[in-house]
């Protein structure tokens, strides 16, 4: 019942000889080479630092940012959900008491090591307060030392949402 016999490939002399397939493949690559040398190349490469990519979508997972409340203070309550969800264990949080009456708890330290981060977005999914997002649109982050890649709470708060 319902058994489909799939014909096996590779048993004819032509296929076993391999050479026709190899030459076929070489024909394909050569045709690309010649097309790209001709007047109508198919090269899609952009000249990156001068030309910036224009197709970064809204949902692109860029460098993280910490969102703020309406009063401009940090939204994060240091619940450690992101650090728990993080598969790369790149989020380092230290909690402290918050005494301004807005909430009880806030992060004293909130560091993300971008060199360890895999940009999976699990932290954004896990956050119960919508306090961490990856919508900054920053796709390239440059630093001169390893320490430059550890973003502090202040740096994360300074990142802005990318406007469409």
């Amino acid at each position, binding site marked *: 019942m319902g058994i489909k016999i799939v014909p096996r490939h590779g048993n004819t002399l032509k296929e076993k000889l391999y050479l026709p397939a190899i030459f076929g493949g070489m024909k394909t690559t050569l045709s690309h080479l010649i097309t790209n040398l001709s007047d109508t190349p198919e090269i899609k490469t952009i000249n990156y630092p001068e030309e910036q990519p224009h197709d970064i979508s809204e949902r692109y997972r860029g460098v993280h940012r910490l969102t703020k409340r309406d009063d401009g203070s940090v939204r994060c309550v240091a*619940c450690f959900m992101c650090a728990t969800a993080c598969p790369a*264990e790149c989020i380092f949080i230290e909690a*402290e008491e918050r005494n301004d009456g807005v909430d009880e*708890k806030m992060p004293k330290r909130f560091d993300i090591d971008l060199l360890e981060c895999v940009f999976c977005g699990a932290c954004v999914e896990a956050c119960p*307060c919508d306090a961490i997002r990856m919508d900054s649109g920053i796709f390239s982050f440059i630093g001169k030392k390893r320490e430059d890649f550890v973003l502090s709470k202040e740096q994360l708060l300074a990142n802005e949402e990318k406007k469409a």
Partner: protein
Amino acid sequence: MAHITVDGTVLEVKEGALLIEELLANNINIPHFCYHPALGKDGNCRMCMVEIEGQKRPQIACDTPIKEGMIIRTKGANIDRVKRSILELELINHPIDCPICDQAGECSLQNYYMDVGLYESRLSTPKTRGEKHVDLGANVVLDQERCVLCTRCVRFTKNITKTSELGVLSRADHSVITTFPGAKLSNPYAMNVVDLCPVGALTSKDFRFQKRVWFLNAKEAICDHCARGCSIFVDHHKEKYKDEVIYRYRPRLNDKINGYFICDAGRLSYHKENENKEFHALIRGKISEYEYAEGKLLRLLKRHLGKTAFVISSNLSLEEMVRVQKLAKLYEIALNAYEPERFDTSFGDDFLKCNDRSANARALPLLGIDTSKEMLQEALNRVELVVLIGRSDANVIKEMGYTQNIAILCSRCEVTCKEVELVLPIASHTRREGSFINLDGYVQHSACAIQSEHGHKTLLAILAPILGDTIFTCKEVWEAELFFYEVLKGVSFDSLKTTPKIAL
């Protein structure tokens, strides 16, 4: 003995006992807030509903005595609907602030909601707000919004400590747990209410916001703060790129010794275990390589052969004492455990705390180790080297007129002066395993050996190469050496789990 049927299974239980006791004893999951084995029934939370054949309505398991032939259902759509409704009522004013609540992860409300709740909120009016950060005193912080009014804490102060500081104020929605005006929660066992609280209403100021509980690893251990030797859990965690940190001690149920509770002093004594990060091996006050200092100890012992005294702490484990004693015999070393600060008369009470502050002093007479000042004085007069093991109170022997070489093997030490020949750090209490004999002669094993990054070896590991054998673990010591002691007859290493008692 009575036979009851629970969800189709026949159980043999004690007639007349409370139903919830026997169900919990048979590992049947019954949600409950107000019932606690040490505090008994109260019947106010209504969470432990079960269906009993022949009864019209579901009954609470915590106030139902067992009768022969009862047929009980704890599962099913009907009883789940009842539980869900009760939970909805309990949670009606509960602020959903699990992200900032320290109880999250070990919270009964969370667990029961995931088991039987999972409903959408039907509340259309604003929640009744309470005060959030009420300092009750004694390191306990109350959050009135989170409280489900199970009154476990009230009953604890009333029945266990008999201090009755806590009570319930006001009615209905506005009921809150509180202390009398002007009074504070102030008894030496107050922090047990944090453990008792099934929700996040009572939290410990000491542990507040330190760590989320799901990161913590619990290891079984014995408290070494006094001779009671309460059973505890050690909650520790190693954060990435950091060393192991102990975050809290929690009481561990041990009927024979401490029941469900421990004292606050013992609970907070974990701080000293985190302190030895910057503690290095010192030779005449200079920081030395650990391995070199270890070799130095052996060289010192050989140089002063026959003219050495060991002054040991009564906090050493049974195994360590036996090994030290063996070394003392081998090298003809005088052995003494005189400790003037052992007794602290201001510490003890009639519940758990006791005046004897040593964890294992009962083992000294059993092993025949002398504790008298006279014998120590006599030994000090003829030796050239004193090795303090597990203690750093060099002033004691100095006061007795001793002026020659001192070596110190301990886990915490403030002595850095140059007169001390050698300071060799050893693994502290929770970083090595060991057995202890408590005040009443119960033998317990503390299996908590948290690896530390600063590489301080255990005393057993330091002694093994000096003694020239390969006995490193407590089990090996029990099998090789403690086996011969008459008082420990019938006690094997494996039987320590059951907390055997020996005659003192």
